[in-house]
């Protein structure tokens, strides 16, 4: 089936088999490998992309369902060679370790911040609850998102005894 969709502001028209999921379409047909596959079952959130303003697990959506949709992937986050505020905050706050969950995590966080300029810690935790991270223990990610909204008053640091 032929589908047309917008990804990161660019229009794509592609022939796609009906049972191909959006994740594999994005990675294999469009060559956008920033979106990762962690479980293929909608549990881990590594494949999160933004579809028509909402975060979705792209592994649970068929590519044909995205016909006519407006998508954003991690590749659309930095603009003009500059990191977005959120990306910058992830960098500054050591919110990245292995980096495999990071693209999906940033996508979920972005949707939160698009509708909520000053989310509370609880709201941040809720927003990224569907994104597993095995390395960081989430704390530095939460701080990065707080920082991106100008809410991280005191940088939590390592104490020296």
């Amino acid at each position: 089936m032929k589908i047309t969709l917008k990804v990161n502001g660019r229009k794509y028209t592609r022939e796609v088999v009906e049972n191909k999921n959006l994740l594999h379409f994005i990675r294999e047909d469009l060559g956008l490998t920033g979106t990762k596959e962690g479980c293929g079952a909608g549990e881990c959130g590594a494949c999160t992309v933004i579809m028509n303003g909402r975060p979705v697990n792209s592994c649970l959506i068929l590519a044909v369902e995205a016909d006519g949709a407006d998508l954003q992937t991690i590749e659309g986050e930095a603009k003009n060679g500059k990191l977005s505020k959120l990306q910058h905050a992830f960098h500054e706050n050591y919110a990245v370790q292995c980096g495999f969950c990071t693209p999906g995590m940033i996508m979920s966080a972005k949707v939160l911040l698009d509708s909520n300029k000053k989310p509370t810690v609880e709201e941040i935790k809720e927003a990224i609850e569907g994104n597993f991270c095995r390395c960081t223990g989430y704390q530095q990610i939460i701080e990065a998102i707080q920082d991106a909204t100008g809410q991280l008053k005191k940088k939590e640091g390592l104490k020296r005894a």
Partner: protein
Amino acid sequence: MLDNLNKKSLKYIGKAERRIDAVEKVTGQALYAGDLEFAGMLHGKVLRSPHARARIKKIDVSKARRLEGVHAVLTGQDLDYRVGLYLVDKYILAKDTIRHYGEAVAAVAAETPVIAQKALDLIEIEYEVQTPFLDPKQVFDKKAPLVHPDLGKYDYVEAVFTPVPGTNIANHTKLRKGDVDKAFKDADLVIEREYTNPNVQHVPMETHIAIGKWDMGDKITVYTSAQSPFTVRNLFAHAFKIPHASIRVIIPYVGGGFGGKAGIHLEPLCCCLSKVAGGRPVKIQATREEEFSLLPCRSGLIYNIKTGVKKNGKIVAQKMTMYWDAGAYADYAVNVTRASGFSASGPYEIENAWVDAYTVYTNKPFGTAYRGFGHVEFSWGVERHMNYVAKALNMDPLKFRMINALKAGSKSMTGEEIVENTGNVSKCMQAVAESINYGKLTAAEKAREKKTGRKIGKSVVALHKAPAMPPFTGTVMILKLNEDGTVTASHSLTDYGMGTYTSLAQIIAEVLRWPIERIRIPIETDTDRDPYDWQTVASKGLLLSGNAAILAARDLLDKCYDVAAQALRAQKCDLDHDESGVFVRHHTAHRVTYQQMAVGYAYPNGNAICGPIVGVGRYIAQGLTNLNKENGQGNPALDWTYGAHGLTVEVDEKTGEYHLIKVASAYDVGCVINAASVRGQAIGGMIQGLGTAMCEGYIYNDKGQLLNPSFTDNKIPTSLDIPEEIDCIAIETPQIDGPFGARGVGEHSMIAVCGALGNAIEEAVNADLTHMPIRQEDVWRAMQKKAEKPARKARALKSPGKSSAKEKAAKAPAKAAKSPEKAKAKVKAAKAPAKAKKTEKAEKAPAKRGRPRK
């Protein structure tokens, strides 16, 4: 490498330097193995056994071979190669015998993953299903089926391991220190109990992925999501009897490992498929389900501890018996057994110690290295047991720990003398105790208890670990000076998330006195291009590679000084350097820049000297020994990193639900190289440890089939599961031979959190737990059990201690049974069985995440 250390003058060491690999990771530009595509690349898939133990009666792959688009089909009959780290016991594909659920039986390579899957579906297999051996405690049962009847024929590392042919014992590690029998007789109290934990999955977010290419003339190229390129190469060479130089292993960005990617896994299979397919590259990307059963997990442990203690709280004897549930193959489990055997007591001094640690083959998915290398598992037993003994002594558990903590002058279980610079575990415990206000409830906490009706409990536990590695573990760092005065590092430590590369860049920048931006540490490692490193495991990377980095930077400078000495006609002793070049101390304008000397210094007339500049640093662990196989004595420890956790939990007395209020962790890291990285390791590992403590673990049926190989039924912690407050504290007792005094802390954060949780829950609601994980329903059950079964086994040998200890041990539970709330809770809870929060969430999650969210 502590010489001339003036901490105040340091520019990079100790700072929260940003990661050198973060930009490509936050933009999605970092390429992991799964992102790589090659011309002609095929996709491999693996057929797995649905049985735990079986004989393959018949296997027919003819239909699969005939399917269009299929380029290779392999079964165990086609591959006569065995692989193994320490004990060579595993065929690449099962040959005749199935030893665990999920074991690879056949594999195909096809033009697309869809065709490969179709081909798998066309393979016909007839199994003769056999009774599996599942309980490692039955290891001495002579009638038990043997997982490896050929154990006596396998190659193994004889200097270190002791398999027992004719049994399911893959290794028996012994430790004998002092006179245990006599000490037990002298003890006032002898207390024995058993603690258990199941298999656990590492869950790196990136599953195992490898791309293999086997060219004519046995030239092999492998791209893989592995932790240790040279280990993959070495084991590959041994298995196939191919020269090391013919095998090239390349590691791109890796999405987490935690030990699960430490050995060799999918690489040989990819390459064998490629060979059949005429050298076309073959990629195998494990599914998440395969990650749980085809690929290795963490071994389970049954741990029996018998402690003899004096009334003053001093432990005088301890007998420790470990049954490691290794699963079907020995892999790292034999070494987990060895490493945990020699530190099985935790960071406490045991004058008279006796350890029997058995690696037991069972018909389950096999165990491998997992962050902590056995210490997470046994720390559960040790730290629960310390509280159990303290309770019997009627002594505060922290005080009891302090009395027995290793300190300068103590001897470790292997006879190693602990000195001031080994580190300070008491200080770690002190720091976390202060952080959580141990021993009392604050006014706010009292108010909270009143408001919520939930009980608050607190605990402090301690931990230690040394790298588990061969005594000859070494590494190399090469620094290549570039034309513009930047430097590019070449080495083979990998950074699959820990941040070690950033720390190494800081160390190099510090020694060179250059801006860190001029140090490049490429993420990819390549055995053809980069020099040897043993492995990236064991929390040894920072210490060994950090020292190699210091030596390489010094060597680079030395070579720069050589050039400058000639060019400036000066003795080296009159030279100094800064970020732009080498100069004469008393005529600072008289200088040669790094750019001028990078590829060879040229005089104005064209004459040139010295050639391109490279700095080399080689470092190998100093003074380590193999352990005596009969008594476990020797010096196995590169360094000991000590730590402690303080944990505050709130528990619902009626339902057993609990919630983490605070975790404070302290580690004696020797010297903080990167403050953000230490904190990242501290928090990340602690939460991973809480996963192990709260909810993770394999569940089998009686046929040995794994029932929960997915995130739906085997949840890991999410952002909603983390404690309300997290405190990370670094203690810095310098390690004399560590880079700037530093020691590793990659694994330690995960150790003993489980015990901290169990102890705090017990303190809150008197639920006595001996099995981990502690699912919320387990707390509820333990509270019920308490009310029903008050007497505990605490055997006293000597009359003075005897009665009092028995009484005390029995008293606490009795008190609990008397409490009216408890009785009420029991009735209520029995009516409405406690619902596991995890299960609830698991059910909700797919619905919530499946489609666009609100």
